[in-house]
């Protein structure tokens, strides 16, 4: 059938090959260009990322549900097997906690009394948004999660993502219906922390391993394995006192922290809005005049120069 077209085909093939080669080189250059652009203009790339994630959120939401269900069933079976031991352990813990409760009540009363003496201004009440983890992305180079809630639900860039046991990360970008959490283990994560027992201040820096490092400790400070690490609240990004983990290892050149929250256990996380604007909001985003009441707080995608 193609017989009459043969000659034309013969000429067309090399031409097409050349065109293809040019197209391929163009695409390679475009990829390079994207990398350079991503280095220069993080805001644009972040916005692109937010939009694409937003668009795919419904699909990821649906796909992640059966897996979550299976994980729950497996978990249930495992719990069933450990029921007896766990029960004994819980009873013991319960007894101990009841003692703690008595102590805590007494301290709370005392605290309230002292605060009233000092006219202490309490921290603003936190406001929580619970969201399901629909994607665990990144592989070897980035540690982040995608949540199925976004600016529509009150999530903003810079807020803290926590579970009952501790800090998970911070919101790195929020779309309309999705938000990306930068985990505390990510290479780009820097969090001001406090070693609870000694009050030593430090920065906890992720390095893409499971255990972030403590850096910038004041000279002469002493930390020991097993010390609890909590957020210090400096810089205003996070509320103070959120539990993060315990010191795992104190070496000559590195101090590592074992986080309380494991990445694989995350099913739902709570995003905390403490009403703190934090260091992540550059001044240009503030309403220019107090008159502009209608100016809603800007969405996460717009925030500039936030890479720590």
């Amino acid at each position, binding site marked *: 059938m193609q017989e009459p077209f043969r000659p034309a085909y013969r000429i067309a093939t090399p031409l097409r090959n050349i065109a*293809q080669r040019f*197209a*391929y080189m163009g*695409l*390679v250059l*475009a*990829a*390079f*260009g*994207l*990398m*350079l*652009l*991503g*280095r220069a203009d993080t805001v644009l*790339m972040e916005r*692109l*990322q937010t939009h*694409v*994630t937003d668009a*795919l959120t419904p*699909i*990821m939401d649906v*796909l*992640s549900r059966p*897996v*979550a269900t299976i*994980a729950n069933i497996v978990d249930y079976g495992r719990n069933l097997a450990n029921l007896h031991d766990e029960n004994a352990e819980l009873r013991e813990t319960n007894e101990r906690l009841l003692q703690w409760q008595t102590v805590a009540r007494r301290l709370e009363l005392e605290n309230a009394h002292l605060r009233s003496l000092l006219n202490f201004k309490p921290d603003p009440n936190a406001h929580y948004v619970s969201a399901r*983890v*629909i*994607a*665990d*992305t*990144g*592989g*070897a*180079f*980035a*540690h*982040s*999660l*995608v949540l199925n809630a976004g600016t529509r639900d009150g999530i903003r860039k810079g807020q803290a993502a926590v579970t009952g046991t501790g800090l998970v990360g911070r919101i*790195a970008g929020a779309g309309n219906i999705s938000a*990306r959490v*930068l985990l505390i283990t990510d*290479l780009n994560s820097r969090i001001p922390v406090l070693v609870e027992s000694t009050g030593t201040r430090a920065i906890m820096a992720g*390095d*893409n*391993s*499971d255990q972030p490092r403590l850096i910038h400790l004041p000279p002469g400070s002493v930390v020991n394995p097993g010390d609890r690490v909590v957020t210090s609240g400096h810089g205003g990004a996070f509320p103070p006192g959120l539990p993060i983990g315990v010191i795992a290892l104190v070496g000559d050149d590195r101090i590592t922290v074992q986080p309380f929250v*494991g*990445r*694989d*256990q*995350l*099913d739902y996380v709570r995003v905390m809005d403490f009403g703190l604007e934090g260091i992540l909001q550059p001044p240009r985003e503030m309403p220019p005049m107090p008159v502009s009441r209608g100016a809603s707080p800007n969405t996460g995608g717009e925030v500039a120069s936030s890479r720590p």
Partner: protein
Amino acid sequence: MRPTFWQRLDQLARKLTPVALTLLLVIVGQIPWHLPGLARVAPLLPLTAVYHWTIQRPDLLPAQAVFCIGLLVDLLSGGPIGVNTLVFLTVYGVIYSQRRFFIGKTFHITWLGFALVAAAAALQAWLLVSIFYTILIRPDALMFQYILTVVLYPVPAWLFLRWQQVFLRAI
């Protein structure tokens, strides 16, 4: 006989499946599996797909599609954008130019070829990300990811081959 409208539509739909399958794998790769330690070393399934289709049916996986697939991986992963795009395009380019070597080989040779290609891809990705952040990234997670991707290669490869035999034989 000219194919009817529905026949052409059917053909078109079949032709789009390699790209669609690969895009689906990209999204499947993002699902939280709730398995301890897996998230860091989750196999790079889209790379498997790009490798397979470039050898078997490059006519159904044009370079533009490879670009889009890589870009989607980058956008969803939260890492530097452009890295996987470049890595996938390189894999595509290398295999496309050396296709004569890959075609018609036994499965074991193809698998070995994938191990080599994936190693080069991992090294390229590591270099690119290290340059992007201007620090040396810890290579341990990447190494495990590489091993897992290579070990699991037969699973997606078998699926693609079956798909090819069932849906793409006549196209």
